[in-house]
């Protein structure tokens, strides 16, 4: 069976720093894949390349047989016009297009539309699937009314699916954090994806909420949607993921089943940052906000927990700033 998403040799440079360095992996239909790695390992940057937000320096991303990275003619390169053209949507695939192709994503730090109601947040995601034109909106034609009704019904369907049971007319800012996370997943699902990218969906959730989230992710998988998640909570990853890709310093250091990963010496070293003597944690890793060694050891060790909480990390959009 062919892969849904193929990432080959993906590289992203910020100035002199390689945020992603030769990353290759693939996602098969209907599987749950976890991408893990210490903070600053380039996970979110990779996500951003895959979903079209960043333009990778090199490499290819192929989703359902369609390439997300566009070839840029050398001529444009030499004229230095390529950035301008790309910002207008030429020689690149815009994230909105990637979404229309069937890849949805969530963001590391919640990015709901704060001044829209819960229902409208989800409706917004159906933008591409809605048959509504300018004139039909102006004139409120029957077609428009039907489309709006269908849109509302579909949105409610997704809200019910994720188990949102509060008032759909509330503004998202009024919801507790856990509920917002759920709305964000409903919103991503409403774009009708084949592949769902979740960026740290469990960040800031408590134990019960995490359990609910895992159940939800399985339910999504059962719909036939492949799920790729970035997650720091090892317990959750080990329990949920069918396959795990481990990144460190933008490079892929391991790819395998949870069992394989647990046993991989490279992974243990990357996480613990210790040599055989158990010497001090490498200070670069501390600076990049590496996770507490004890917590990781515990998490990898028993695999069940959820005891670890994410520690302060750099925000996704600041990754490129660290020079």
């Amino acid at each position: 069976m062919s892969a849904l998403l193929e990432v080959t040799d993906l590289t992203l440079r910020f100035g002199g720093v390689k945020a992603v360095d030769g990353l290759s992996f693939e996602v098969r239909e209907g599987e749950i894949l976890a991408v893990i790695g210490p903070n600053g390992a380039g996970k979110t940057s990779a996500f951003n390349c895959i979903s079209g937000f960043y333009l990778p320096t090199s490499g290819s991303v192929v989703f359902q047989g369609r390439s997300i990275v566009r070839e840029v003619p050398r001529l444009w390169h030499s004229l230095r016009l390529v950035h301008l053209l790309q910002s207008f949507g030429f020689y690149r695939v815009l994230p909105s297009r990637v979404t229309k192709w069937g890849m949805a994503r969530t963001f590391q730090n919640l990015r709901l539309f704060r001044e829209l109601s819960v229902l409208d947040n989800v409706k917004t995601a159906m933008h591409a699937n809605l048959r509504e034109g300018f004139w039909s909106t102006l004139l409120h034609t029957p077609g428009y009314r039907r489309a709006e009704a269908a849109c509302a019904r579909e949105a409610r369907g997704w809200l019910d699916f994720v188990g949102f049971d509060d008032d759909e007319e509330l503004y998202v800012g009024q919801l507790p954090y856990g509920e917002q996370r759920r709305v964000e997943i409903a919103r991503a699902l409403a774009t009708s994806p084949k592949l769902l990218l979740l960026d740290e969906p469990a960040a800031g959730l408590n134990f019960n909420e995490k359990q609910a989230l895992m159940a939800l992710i399985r339910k999504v998988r059962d719909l036939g949607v492949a799920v790729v998640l970035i997650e720091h909570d090892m317990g959750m990853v080990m329990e949920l993921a069918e396959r795990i890709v481990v990144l460190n310093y933008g490079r892929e250091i391991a790819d395998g089943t949870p069992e394989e990963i647990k046993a991989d010496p490279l992974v243990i070293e990357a996480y613990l940052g210790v040599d055989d003597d158990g010497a001090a944690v490498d200070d670069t890793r501390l600076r990049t906000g590496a996770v507490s060694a004890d917590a990781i050891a515990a998490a990898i060790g028993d695999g069940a927990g959820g005891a670890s909480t994410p520690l302060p990390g750099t925000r996704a959009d600041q990754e490129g700033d660290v020079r």
Partner: protein
Amino acid sequence: MMQLIWNGIIVGSFYALVALGYSMVYGIIKLLNFAHGDIYMLGAFVGFFTLSSFGISNETSIPLLLVVLLLSMVTTGLIGVGIERIAYRPLRRSPRLAVLITAIGVSFTLEYGVRQIFGPNPEAFPIRLESSGFEVAGVRVTASQLVLVIIAAALMLVLAHIVERTRQGRAMRAIALDPQGAQLMGVNVDRVISTVFFIGSALAGAAGVMAGAYYGSIDFLMGFIIGLKAFTAAVIGGIGNLYGAMLGGLLLGLLESFGAAWFGGEWRDVFSFAFLILFLTFKPTGLLGARVVERM
């Protein structure tokens, strides 16, 4: 030709002084301080008010100018700090749009507040610089122009020193790079922002006084156009970059000088705004601005 260049440098040094404040404030809190041009106007009026309340008029002394300059700088600096405290600080976590609109409100308040106090008519500035001229390489240079350029250059040097060499300057650069990080490192962000507003406003105030002394006429709307031009200059140089602001100011002055000579004075503003748009379209980071990473 050489004359056009010299004219451009004169105008450009005004633009540069005002652009510096724009750029500093933008660099540190990413706010387009619309009211900045009006601080320039305020500087001129502070000078006017001080001098005329001492009954001075038609004076040509440079020491007196320096005293008034200093006084105006302190006053406008404090006003700038006050504006930040009252109007901008409470909105620091609000959407950009809110702060921008507030800045427009502040600009209006300053302009029409001054209009209510001093009236709508232009006023003659009480200090006039000697403008006996001499020719150098086919360029007519007046003494007042020289004084002007020297003061502007001195102020910029002082600023460069502050930013590059002092603790405050380091703190400013740190905040500009990473506000949260700087806070974690124990930088008092509020204080540094106040300092930036003080310095930026003081420079604009200085430019205002110098404009008064050089041109001789001040009015309550004099800050509007120069505010726009200074912003254009800041963008051309690379907003957030101090040397960029200086370079952009001079460059814009030159561009305008030649543009007005070629296309006629009535098209001068069209020319510079068109330039702003071109720059933002093709090189939004400006000449010296850091490359902005294409990010989400």
